[in-house]
């Protein structure tokens, strides 16, 4: 077997996969802005993504804020810079941890479930049935999910920001002996609007990506139960990778000197 041909084939397959994904994303976005709209389906997805993801995002950001306060205190104590703990917690949570962790958690919870649901609908011919009932499946199934992911991740991350900073505050006050007033004052002095906004922009992008990958892999699923399982796994893995890649890209856009 010619190794060059194998590399060429793999590269072409990669380009083909990227092309398919981009076309799928484009079709989904055009369906979001063109009627008919399905408000009930959108509302259901918004509740599923936004409301039901709250506990897992809250717990993740709470403990991340707590551990961040502990770790940064340990590090800063070496330079007698313990006063920077509150600021570091606030910046890290708002800029990075809340959007990335919320994105990853939603990818695990919602992305996998979207892929499994749409994959099951595909293999049981429910998606074909929609086409026969004067309904475009891209419009009815995919567009509301992608819009809901895009819209609901920012408020989810905003809640995560508050809870994460609160986690740092609890450790700061009860474990590291900060005074409540000083901790809050430090937090306000460090944090800027741009920090929060960059996190929310990331959240919107991650919400879009998670829903897109969940829908894409589910919609194209084939091969029965095994195919549905593969779709769910691919949705989570590809979402996680894209979240990390786009996290760097958006950070670069906001903060690169």
């Amino acid at each position: 077997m010619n190794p060059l041909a194998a590399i060429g084939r793999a590269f072409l397959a990669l380009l083909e996969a990227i092309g398919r994904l981009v076309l799928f994303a484009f079709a989904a976005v055009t369906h979001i802005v063109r009627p008919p709209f399905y408000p009930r389906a959108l509302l259901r997805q918004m509740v599923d993504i936004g409301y039901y993801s709250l506990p897992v995002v809250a717990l993740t950001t709470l403990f991340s804020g707590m551990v961040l306060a502990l770790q940064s205190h340990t590090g800063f104590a070496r330079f007698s810079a313990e006063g920077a703990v509150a600021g570091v917690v606030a910046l890290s949570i708002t800029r990075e941890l809340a959007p990335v962790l919320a994105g990853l958690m939603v990818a695990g919870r919602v992305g996998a479930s979207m892929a499994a649901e749409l994959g099951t609908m595909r293999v049981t011919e429910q998606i074909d049935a929609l086409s026969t009932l004067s309904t475009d499946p891209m419009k009815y199934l995919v567009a509301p999910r992608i819009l809901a992911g895009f819209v609901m991740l920012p408020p989810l991350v905003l809640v995560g920001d508050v809870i994460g900073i609160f986690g740092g505050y609890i450790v700061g006050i009860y474990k590291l002996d900060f005074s409540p007033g000083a901790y809050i004052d430090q937090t306000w002095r460090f944090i800027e609007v741009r920090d929060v906004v960059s996190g929310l922009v990331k959240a919107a992008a991650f919400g879009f990506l998670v829903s897109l990958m969940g829908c894409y892999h589910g919609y194209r699923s084939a091969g029965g139960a095994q195919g549905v399982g593969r779709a769910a796994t691919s949705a989570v893995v590809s979402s996680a990778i894209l979240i990390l890649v786009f996290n760097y890209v958006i950070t670069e856009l906001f903060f690169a000197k």
Partner: protein
Amino acid sequence: MSGPGEPKIRIRGLHKAFGEKRVLRGVDLDIGAGESMVVIGGSGTGKSVTVKCALGIVEPDSGSILIDGAESVGLKGAAREAVNARMGMLFQGGALFDSLPVWENVAFGLVAAGQRTRRDAKPVALETLAQVGLGPEVGDLMPAELSGGMQKRVALARAIAARPDIIFFDEPTTGLDPIMADVINDLIVECVRELGATALSITHDMASARKIADRIAMLHEGRIVWSGAVADIDASGNEFVDQFIHGRASGPIRMAVRR
């Protein structure tokens, strides 16, 4: 509407391949208005693909499907939806939407096509459920709470709810016990007659085919190898049909079985 003497559905030279596998190799079939055509054939001979081509779910590689004299191959968007709004389809596994209660499944096409609001569609859905022998209490159940036979009835109700003039039935009796299969066959005959619809069914269940067909066509290796009136099938003189209807292992049809 079809002109005089013009078939309701005319399929000509339909070809479809999936990769190397050539499933349809030139299907030609005419179905008259108000006629019930049953296509028989073994598994993997292209029966379902033919119906999916007619519904626009699968795009044929070449060929023509005229519905009332108008080409339906290649239609997209609103034009395809307009054609599909006149059609009903009963899927092999029912394909009921798990996330919706039974009545919403039945009313789905009515609401989607803008024929009824969601609220107005409920009485019509319950009426259609009654037509297939299901009481109003079934309307609020979820599809997962129904037996296989009840799911088939609901799927039939969904297929006829918008009073289509063409109905497709994909293996309507598969997975049912003989009594329930006969009940479904009777319902199909009754519904098609009442609507005055044209029906295209695909099955390998000969009892079902004999009961619901006016005419039968046999598909083998992607081509129609025989078609004729249901009364003529036992004297078709076609060796493929003879082997199939008698369920003989030996004959011109060779199954892909390795020993």
